């Protein structure tokens, strides 16, 4: 079963614009992570936010977490064509740190 559900399923923006992606989940989590996957390649870890954190930054990335609403958002500022990829949220839960991925968001950044 997939816990995280991303929204929207696809997003197309112009280079330089900001991209906002959302993720909702259903159960208690240890942390929430965002990954990027370029076409035909493996996943790259972008950022991790713990369940007791509300906001985190890393370069052009900003992630928020609202545990009361069981939702997270990923903001990519000043997007670049190289940001074109699929983005997945993944929730980590349980003592074994099991990671459950959503279906992903396809982001296209037009030059």
């Amino acid at each position, binding site marked *: 079963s997939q816990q995280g559900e991303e929204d929207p399923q696809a997003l197309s923006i112009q280079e330089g614009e900001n991209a906002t992606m959302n993720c909702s989940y259903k159960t208690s989590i*240890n942390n929430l992570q965002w990954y990027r996957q370029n076409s035909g*390649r*493996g996943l*790259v870890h972008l950022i991790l936010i713990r369940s007791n954190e509300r906001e985190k930054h890393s370069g052009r990335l900003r992630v928020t977490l609202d545990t009361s609403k069981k939702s997270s958002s990923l903001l990519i500022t000043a997007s670049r064509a190289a940001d074109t990829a699929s983005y*997945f949220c*993944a929730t980590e839960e349980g003592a*074994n*740190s*099991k990671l459950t991925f959503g279906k*992903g968001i396809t982001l296209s950044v037009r030059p």
Partner: protein
Amino acid sequence: EAGVAQSPRYKIIEKRQSVAFWCNPISGHATLYWYQQILGQGPKLLIQFQNNGVVDDSQLPKDRFSAERLKGVDSTLKIQPAKLEDSAVYLCASSLGSLEYLLTDTQYFGPGTRLTVL
């Protein structure tokens, strides 16, 4: 630092045949994961090893899939016999898996093996 290595990168087989995938995790990583990613979906965990012991294999179709991690380093995932619905990318990932990084352990993924079952 070398990343997670997987081979082969691509494999095409006919249904009912057998196939095996190999994974070499990042040196020193105690935890190893195998995921199945069907086209258009997110990765689904098949099996998780901590050193050479299985931590979670609840989503592994054990009638046809098997995995082992001898000596707690390399791992192989086997499908026997393959079905059409096994067509997917099989991803291997590893993480430190130590108590020091409990609740914040990052998984590092390999490039995956794309399996096509005809």
